[in-house]
């Protein structure tokens, strides 16, 4: 099965379109199942925590999953962009554009849940600005928005792909720099405002299950989006005309 013909169907829009269509339900079901399991574990199986953390710690299961995905998707996006740029493979560029909005959404979730968690767990006057992780999320959100808006503004599809690729490649190189710079301790910054604690095993498992669920969801959502992008950009090709021509 793992021969050339198998891999080739993932490499051109024409062959990937139906394959992606079959893959979406699989990933969606996995996402929902693991999501249900993760939520059950986090709400009912984790021990109650007393003291500083309080019940607000139920937020971290989505917060951590979303922040992992936000970073991870950007890296994957940069990888696809690089691949598409070097090999001139249109599908890779399309995957990069399809991942960006999902990544931006994950970043947004991570940012907002992070702020809510900070307020709930430590103090209601929590300002999120000195928190390096949230600050990185904010910069990451801007990076995603820059990528998305650049591709929206450019009319020509090929130029949009390639311009986005350059931005994503440079962004991936800069992301560790930004992360490191924001973390750099200065006098204004408390060393670490997150109290260290050891998590019970159930919580770790619940968190990993939630990360898995978000991961599966991200794949499903970007596959759905990449199908729409393929239709948008391959209008003049025979396969789209066959596919959509049959419907009209």
């Amino acid at each position: 099965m793992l021969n050339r013909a198998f891999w080739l169907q993932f490499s051109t829009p024409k062959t990937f379109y139906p394959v992606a269509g079959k893959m979406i339900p699989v990933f969606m079901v996995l996402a929902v199942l693991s999501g249900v399991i993760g939520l059950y574990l986090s709400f009912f199986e984790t021990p109650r925590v007393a003291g500083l953390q309080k019940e607000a710690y139920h937020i971290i299961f989505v917060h951590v999953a979303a922040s992992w995905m936000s970073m991870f998707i950007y890296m994957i996006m940069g990888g696809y962009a690089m691949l598409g740029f070097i090999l001139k493979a249109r599908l890779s560029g399309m995957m990069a554009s399809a991942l960006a909005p999902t990544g931006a959404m994950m970043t947004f979730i991570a940012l907002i849940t992070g702020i809510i968690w900070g307020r709930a767990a430590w103090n209601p006057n929590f300002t999120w600005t000195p928190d390096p992780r949230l600050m990185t999320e904010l910069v990451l959100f801007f990076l995603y928005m820059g990528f998305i808006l650049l591709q929206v503004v450019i009319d020509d599809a090929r130029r949009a792909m390639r311009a986005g690729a350059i931005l994503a490649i440079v962004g991936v190189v800069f992301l560790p720099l930004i992360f490191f710079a924001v973390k750099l301790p200065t006098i204004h910054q408390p060393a670490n405002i997150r109290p260290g604690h050891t998590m019970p095993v159930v919580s770790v498992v619940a968190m990993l299950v939630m990360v898995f669920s978000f991961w599966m969801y991200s794949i499903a959502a970007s596959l759905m989006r990449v199908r729409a992008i393929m239709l948008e950009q391959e209008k003049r090709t025979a396969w789209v005309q066959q596919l959509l021509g049959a419907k009209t």
Partner: protein
Amino acid sequence: MKWQSVYDFVFMNGQGWYVWPSYLLVAVCIVAEIFFIKWRDKNAEIKFKQYVNLKRVQDNESEA
């Protein structure tokens, strides 16, 4: 069972005010994203029809 009652589960010692909106946000974001993708898919089909019509006009023009 770690919760004493449904009330306890929902209220969470007052922390429910923070927990549930967070989950609501996630749910809203996911629903919105899927809605936007579906909308984009529909839009791609509409744009395709426009494109086909435009091309027909242009082809007729170049034949004339």
